């Protein structure tokens, strides 16, 4: 079966419509969303309603959680005071705009979705806030997939799509225990072959240009296609300004930058 996976819509309706049109035109009917339906962008209600109307299974992103639970993302996820202030402003604006029904919907989203050996999460199986960057420590990346009991892990959150195959791994250890006074035991553990697929971002791309990104995965062949979809960027930029959000958000989006940079520390685990 061929299915589409998308993430990080960030209240960008024009981008979501363009991606859904692309998926429809390919004749794909199974779609999974990895969260962050809202945040920064100008159309939170419209985007949530479109996802609900299309009945797209979604897991909860860090923005979806924070809008419901109150802003409690750890401050260390913002690399600067500027990014933090902008994040808080966008949070407050989004929380004020969202209808109660849409908040209830976001609150109902699960942290993870599972289909056989495919696992769908926003950040990592550990946390919606953890970044799985393409070049992060390969053992740590494998540990995330393996501990979660999956063969293929779909994630988002970084806004940069990639496919990473982890293979031919092994770890040799020497074990000594105080209860066993014999000489230390040597052991070699072969590591399983696992895959991480990052779906990129529909509404806030950060991969070098302004096109929305998502992925198509064929479960039979294992092939993955990273799709880039141009959309009416001007429409979203205009909506940002009309909504009273900072015009610099429109500028950042039009340059392919995130609204507010996030810490790029892949190993950072928020301990809130």
């Amino acid at each position: 079966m061929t299915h589409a996976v998308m993430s990080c819509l960030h209240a960008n309706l024009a981008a979501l419509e363009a991606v859904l049109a692309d998926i429809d035109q390919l004749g794909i009917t199974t779609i999974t969303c990895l969260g962050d339906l809202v945040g920064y962008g100008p159309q939170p209600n419209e985007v949530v309603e479109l996802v609900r109307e299309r009945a797209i299974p979604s897991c909860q992103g860090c923005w979806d959680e924070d809008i419901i639970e109150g802003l409690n993302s750890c401050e260390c996820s913002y690399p600067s005071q500027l990014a933090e202030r902008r994040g808080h402003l966008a949070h407050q604006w989004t929380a004020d705009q969202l209808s109660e029904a849409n908040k209830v919907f976001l609150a109902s989203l699960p942290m993870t979705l599972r289909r056989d050996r495919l696992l769908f999460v926003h950040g990592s199986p550990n946390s919606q806030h953890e970044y799985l960057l393409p070049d992060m420590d390969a053992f740590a990346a494998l540990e995330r997939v393996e501990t979660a009991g999956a063969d293929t892990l779909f994630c988002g959150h970084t806004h940069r799509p990639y496919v990473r195959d982890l293979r031919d791994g092994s770890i040799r250890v020497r074990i000594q225990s105080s209860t066993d006074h014999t000489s230390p035991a040597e052991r070699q553990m072969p590591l399983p072959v696992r895959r991480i697929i990052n779906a990129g971002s529909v509404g806030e791309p950060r991969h070098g240009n302004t096109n929305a990104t998502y992925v198509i995965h064929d479960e039979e062949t294992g092939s993955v296609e990273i799709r880039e979809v141009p959309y009416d960027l001007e429409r979203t930029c205009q909506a940002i300004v009309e909504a009273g959000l900072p015009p610099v958000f429109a500028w950042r989006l039009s340059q392919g930058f995130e609204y507010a940079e996030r810490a790029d520390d892949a190993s950072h685990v928020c301990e809130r």
Partner: protein
Amino acid sequence: MARWALVSGLQGELEVYEAIQRDLRQVGRVDTLFVLGNLIGPDRDANALLDRLQSPRRGELQPQCIYGWWEDQLLAERAFRGDRRADALRLSQGEAAVDALLQAVDPGHLQWLAALQFGFIELDCALLHGSSADVGDSLNTGSSPLLLLDRLTRMDVNRLFTARSGEQFSVDLTGGGIDSHVRDLEGERQLQQVVPQRKVIGIGSGLHYTLYDPGSDRIEFRTLDQQPGSRGRGFA
């Protein structure tokens, strides 16, 4: 180079702490005493031990303490952990254990316990109760090497000292590697990584404690007999 003594799981037993202090005077060449959590437990009144840890006697090594799983449960139940309560304890050992834990510690000690840190980083070593993932993370010789490596990587340290399992052990990562292939919009790349030479050390609990010489990387597991004044047995 002077050694570190690593102790955990005292669970309110002042006699055990005193036996360790006596042993430390005998073995010598120890300049720092780390107490990696579980100072308290539900089975006995911990106040005398907590008093002593905060006010060491003359000639005793000053203990450097962090909180462990039992302190975390107590602090949660006493509302020092936001909305979280001692649910893990309640689930595993029932309401009676929660009550017993509350009884074991005088509220006057709570501020001191609440100020304890999650862990210490000393040189290239992390000194924790559980692991970098969680205070309750129980690492032992049966833990997956991949998991152990992850816990080391998260703290970016070469040595991870852990106490949660109560076992004394050392797992050395001695070799191996992994290949990864990344494809993104910029292209494809192949990355090879080798297993770094790191280790996880279980320090034991109660009368079982550990000496570590950071200069030579030498570990000595010690076990004390219960009788006062008796000599400890150690092996490296």
